[in-house]
């Protein structure tokens, strides 16, 4: 556990400025078995202390790869000097942040350091199961990825706290070939928030997951290329989660709104059909822990849910303290940093489209000619809300019934146009917490959603 040598440094904080002091450790563990060959067997432990000072509209930041009292003093001094340099040259002359509530948020858990041999033994059993059960696969890989983040934060005018966020996932990657010899691949992650022992127990409990992936791969190998064009589709939960994160979530990050994102002129306006509701949950969703709970951000703001779209109307942004002041909104704990040497940026937590009332089978039955898209491997979006998602598994729908599977493709659209085409929403949300978002720094994020019937562009031949 990280030692608390930072709270006592508050007496060194400069007057009249906002100061954050943080000590942090990130650990990652990685195992990769490719065809039984161990191609990655690594551990990483990165820690240090950092300080950020806000003065008259500009920030100074400094960090050191050392967890000590003297390092804390060094970075405080350097951050203050950097803020002074910027203030002297830029002279924005903005005032201090509005007063914020103060308090303490304790850590709810500890990081448990599982030995590498335990990880490896577990992965080997999974790999052996795949090898003996499905020998006809052209290749297989089992990848374990565990990353944890522990932080102690103290601020001049906000909450102090201790946060601990471990997560672990195992990815299965299976490859086969189509009848014409074309390679076909499918990947599935299992895992979630917590230490290894919290999430996994017996490898055999994961065999059904592997079996389902294999079955889907066998369907996919018989797949056809999608017919490119503007089509009616059902986005499964993984894709609607991607939509919530990429196509809406990023455009409502207040720093991107200030950079001209499409959410700027649309606040308070209709951006989706009345069936569309979208929330960035902090730590609890639908009465259960969210995939990646966030209780306190790195500016000392306790995290709370941010309602972004209500009944199709854009209602809010995701803010830091600075952007909240700019837009006259309330900060809700979205400013987070990945490494000790990173400054907090506005980041999503657990972003999801809320469920509706339709049953998935009824939605499928309602489509005359379209696609049901179930798996995705990546997504990107733009300031305009134009998005692209990779689709790795899906099916044609013909006359209300699932037909042939499709090969890898891509869908695209413009979020605030596409959301207006949503006319059916399923009653069940599918979550994932394995996502890592890229925006200058990496960040672990959760996302989820129900099945949505809508219209998008689909790539193909």
């Amino acid at each position, binding site marked *: 556990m990280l030692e608390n040598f930072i709270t006592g440094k508050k007496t060194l904080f400069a007057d009249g400025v906002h100061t954050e002091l943080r000590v942090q450790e990130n650990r990652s563990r990685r195992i990769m078995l490719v065809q039984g060959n161990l191609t990655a067997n690594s551990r990483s*432990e990165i820690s240090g202390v950092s300080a950020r000072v806000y003065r008259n509209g*500009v920030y100074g930041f400094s960090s050191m790869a050392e967890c000590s009292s003297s390092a804390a003093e060094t970075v405080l001094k350097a951050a203050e000097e950097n803020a002074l340099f*910027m203030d002297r040259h830029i002279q924005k002359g903005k005032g201090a942040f509005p007063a914020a509530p103060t308090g303490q948020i304790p850590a709810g858990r500890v990081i448990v350091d599982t030995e590498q041999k335990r990880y490896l033994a577990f992965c080997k059993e999974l790999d052996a199961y795949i090898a003996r059960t499905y020998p006809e696969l052209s*290749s297989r890989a089992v990848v374990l990825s565990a990353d944890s983040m522990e932080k102690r934060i103290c601020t001049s005018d906000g909450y102090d706290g201790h946060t601990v966020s471990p997560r672990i996932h195992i990815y299965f990657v299976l490859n086969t070939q189509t009848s014409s010899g074309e390679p076909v691949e499918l990947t599935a992650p299992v895992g979630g928030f917590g230490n290894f022992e919290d999430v996994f127990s017996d490898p055999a409990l994961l065999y059904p997951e592997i079996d389902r992936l294999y079955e889907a791969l066998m369907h996919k190998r018989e797949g056809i290329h999608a017919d490119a064009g503007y089509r009616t589709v059902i986005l499964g939960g993984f894709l609607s989660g991607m939509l919530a994160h990429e196509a809406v979530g990023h455009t409502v990050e207040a720093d991107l709104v200030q950079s001209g994102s499409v959410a700027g002129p649309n606040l308070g306006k209709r951006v989706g059909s009345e069936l569309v509701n979208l929330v960035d949950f902090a730590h609890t969703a639908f009465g259960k822990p969210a995939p990646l709970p966030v209780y306190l951000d790195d500016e000392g703001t306790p995290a709370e849910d941010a309602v972004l779209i209500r009944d199709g109307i854009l209602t809010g942004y995701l803010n830091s303290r600075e952007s909240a002041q700019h837009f006259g909104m309330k900060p809700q704990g979205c400013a987070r940093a990945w490494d000790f040497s990173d400054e907090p940026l506005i980041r999503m937590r657990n972003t999801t489209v809320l469920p509706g009332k339709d049953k998935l089978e009824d939605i499928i039955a309602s489509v005359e000619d379209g696609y049901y898209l179930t798996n995705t491997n990546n997504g990107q979006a733009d300031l305009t809300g134009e998005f*692209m998602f990779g689709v790795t598994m899906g099916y044609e729908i013909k006359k209300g019934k699932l037909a042939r599977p499709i090969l*890898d*493709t891509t869908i695209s659209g413009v979020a605030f146009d596409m959301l207006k085409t949503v006319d059916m929403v399923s009653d069940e949300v599918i979550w994932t917490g394995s996502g890592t978002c890229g925006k200058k720094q990496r960040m672990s994020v959760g996302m989820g959603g129900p099945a949505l019937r809508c219209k998008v562009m689909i790539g193909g031949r």
Partner: protein
Amino acid sequence: MEDIRMAGDRVNDTLQRYGVDKAGFWVAETQTQEFNVNSGEFSLLRTLFDNSLSLTVYHQNRKGTITTNKLDEASVHKAVEDALASAESGVADEAYDIAPDQGGHCFHDRGYEPDMERLFERTRELMEEIARRYPRILVEELIVSHSKVHSLYRNTNGTECEVFKGHYLVSIGFAGHEGDVTTSLFGADVTTDNLDRPFMELGTIETQLKEAEAQLVTRPLEGKFQGTVVLTPDSLGYFLYSILSNFAGDSGILEKTSLWLDKWNEQVADSRLTISINPSDPRIVDRAHITADGFREEDYDIIRDGVLRSYMLSLYVANKSGLERAKNSSFSVVVREGTTPYEEMVKGIKKGLIVGRFSGGNPGTSGEFSGVAKNSFLIEDGKITDAVSETMISGNLAQMLMNVADISKETVADGGSILPYIAFDKIVISGK
């Protein structure tokens, strides 16, 4: 502040004490200073002091790797213990190895010491020039930094490589704005070891500023057709990375899923295409000097005159597959220029698209790709007619290399790669 050579000695002593017979490691000290501009305004100055130790040990043909940013005695001991424990729990494999003794070398690269005042002035100059000449552009984010790295590589076969290197990075993202209209994001990352030229002149920054303003009025493309797609140096990088990592990289060869698995010395691309990895090219700024496996870096061709000459393999996968290892482990891609001036190339296209950025899924082992053609312009009868939106392109990465229509005479160097414009035939272009 760490003395890197002393830290290296500490690692060597610890390895010896634990009886490790085979290992390779890097120790490094890094100082970074960085200015940030957000939403058109200066926002942040960062100063970072970091260390790193990256150690791989080999024990009874088992391998374990540890990374830490602590170089003190206790941390080095823990790192060696952890790496050994990882190795002991690993899978024995005779293919794990490190390079034989490459001797001792020391490199002093240009740009080691930063000039922060000048860096700030160059940054301010860029912002002022954009405001003056491109008033409809809003800079979403500009990150300008200098990183100064003193690193030392050693392995138990006797190799030592000490490097003093420093470089400036200019990373800019921007969009055109007029009223409520916003364009897609444009941007460029440029690495340089000097501040001699205004940032506006680096890489494709100015070209993209012009194109962002031209994208303020777009029309959605209608219908679907097979046409010619010109990839600019900015979008070509994405495709090359996908092609080379899918077909020439470690995983495709180890898993035997690569479409180029049995294609060594065979034609895999148009004969005008030569793709090399050339870290020693003077236009490449950030060099490692030594590979991940401890070999001295050398330039090499992946494709020469359309023929597959090398894969991009680590020593491990080379040993597993019996193929030759890559002669460096960088991605300093250099594509040989063609003979046609860019303007002439466009004039020769009947119907097609210039694609400035591609937003696509991660192409799988089959090489099938599809995605959104961002920052793109329609070509009709040899003329650039409209900026387009909501347009997708799709095709196959392997087939694409065989369908090269032309390669431009002009190339763009951004410090990390040197790329021309390339036109590819038979790409599916589709709109609403």
